[in-house]
């Protein structure tokens, strides 16, 4: 099975590129429509088909979880028999542990995306701005709710393409070339092993997007690491924790930070101890399944000690459970 996953910012041209890639390679395009049709054939109805951020809505949770599970089953099934181009749906996480897969993120400047959306849908600028923001927000929520992952984490992808100065068909050709290089086994691998490569794509926080962090305490912690000149990566890896009887991942965990020089994962929690049990359980499970991985939980008290005299207001910044 050949797999190319494409995640895109709304208005970046990612969908058009996915069509080009599918046409040129003969891979089956898996997008929302294919999934809806496929699931409908199995008699599974989508709880709310217009909803981009499935799983993010309140209520009807059981129904939505079932749908998401069915959707993942459907994609995995399809992948066994076909080569796929998967558009969105957290494809890079679904096939994260399948090394031949190529994971692509398509991006463009916000203003450029608004401009394209205005042109494509004949919208006024205000409406287009709102639409782009809503759609991006939906994607963030989807990955957060379904995979507990950060959509803005570019380390989920092998290739990031900025389409601002690019003809979309050229972008598709680039992806196809990248896929061929990536998927073809070569006898001599150039460069250091993957672990070291990841270190090299460390993005200095000043250049990272301001909204990268899911919680103010994480941003504060990153500032502190910068202060002491400790290299870090934000949510670089997801660990699978639970599988259902058919081998589908039903629980995963992405620790907040990885410190490459310490080879240490760090999870922060500013929840009160009685609320942190879920996170503690995940960490225990992770230690069982991945005994060679070092992970440290910094709890509310530990975090406050770190910031001793610092002014951040922890009570206001208390996080939701995740």
């Amino acid at each position: 099975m050949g797999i190319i996953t494409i995640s895109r910012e709304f208005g970046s041209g990612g969908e058009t590129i996915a069509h080009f890639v599918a046409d040129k390679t003969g891979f089956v395009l898996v997008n929302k429509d294919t999934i809806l049709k496929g699931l409908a054939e199995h008699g599974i109805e989508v709880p709310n088909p217009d909803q981009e951020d499935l799983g993010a809505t309140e209520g009807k949770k059981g129904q939505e979880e079932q749908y998401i599970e069915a959707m993942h089953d459907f994609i995995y099934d399809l992948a066994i028999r076909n080569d796929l181009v998967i558009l969105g749906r957290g494809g890079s996480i679904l096939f994260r542990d399948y090394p031949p897969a190529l994971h692509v993120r398509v991006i463009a400047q916000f203003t450029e995306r608004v401009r394209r959306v205005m042109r494509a849908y004949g919208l006024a600028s205000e409406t287009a701005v709102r639409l782009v923001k809503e759609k991006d927000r939906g994607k963030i929520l989807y990955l957060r709710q379904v995979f507990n992952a950060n959509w803005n984490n570019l380390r989920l992808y092998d290739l990031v393409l900025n389409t601002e100065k690019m003809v979309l068909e050229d972008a598709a050709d680039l992806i196809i070339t990248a896929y061929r290089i990536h998927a073809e086994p070569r006898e001599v691998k150039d460069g250091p092993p993957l672990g070291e490569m990841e270190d090299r794509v460390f993005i200095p926080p000043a250049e990272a997007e301001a909204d990268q962090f899911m919680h103010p305490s994480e941003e504060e912690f990153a500032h502190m690491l910068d202060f002491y000149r400790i290299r870090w990566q934000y949510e670089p890896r997801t660990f699978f924790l639970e599988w259902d009887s058919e081998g589908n991942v039903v629980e995963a965990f992405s620790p907040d930070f990885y410190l490459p020089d310490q080879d240490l994962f760090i999870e922060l929690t500013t929840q009160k101890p009685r609320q942190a049990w879920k996170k503690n359980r995940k960490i225990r499970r992770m230690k069982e399944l991945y005994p060679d991985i070092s992970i440290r939980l910094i709890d509310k008290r530990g975090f406050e000690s770190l910031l001793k005299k610092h002014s951040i207001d922890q009570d206001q910044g208390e996080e939701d459970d995740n």
Partner: protein
Amino acid sequence: MKDQKPYEDNQLKILFTQEQIEEKIGELGKKISADFAGLELILVGVLRGSIYFLVDLTRKMRIPFAIDFISISHYSEQADSTGVVRIIKDLDLSIADKHVLVVEDIVDTGLSLGYLLRNLKSRKPASLKVCTLVNVEARRIVEVPVDYKGFDVPNVFVVGYGLDYNEKYRNLQFIAQFDRP
């Protein structure tokens, strides 16, 4: 005034008494004297918390040594969150080819000590070791070598014997757990 309250309040719970501290420092002084006998030793006190410990430790030592001090900026003391750690007061002595023992009041996250050790190491000392009165392993983020330690303490906030809360409580002769207001 609020800040002038006497120290003997119910926020303090004594963990180590004056006698226990004295005994422990005696042991450390003896061990350090034995380990560094015949070597050119510089004790580097990390300001400000370590001064009480450093003074008492040196009184228990029976070998010659030099003393110097170093001070670095702390994350919790900076006005904004954009700076990086730097040395506020550097050593006056050269430590190249000398045996250096860094004396700390407390090692917890290892973040500041980690930076300090990287910095001192670049000056090519003959050896670089660490002695701390209090060690809080439960809060460690960065692994740092602790060669001599007085007391292991769980994940609680401690004051006294050089350790402060907002500059208070340093002069207590015992070490106490402090429940912050």
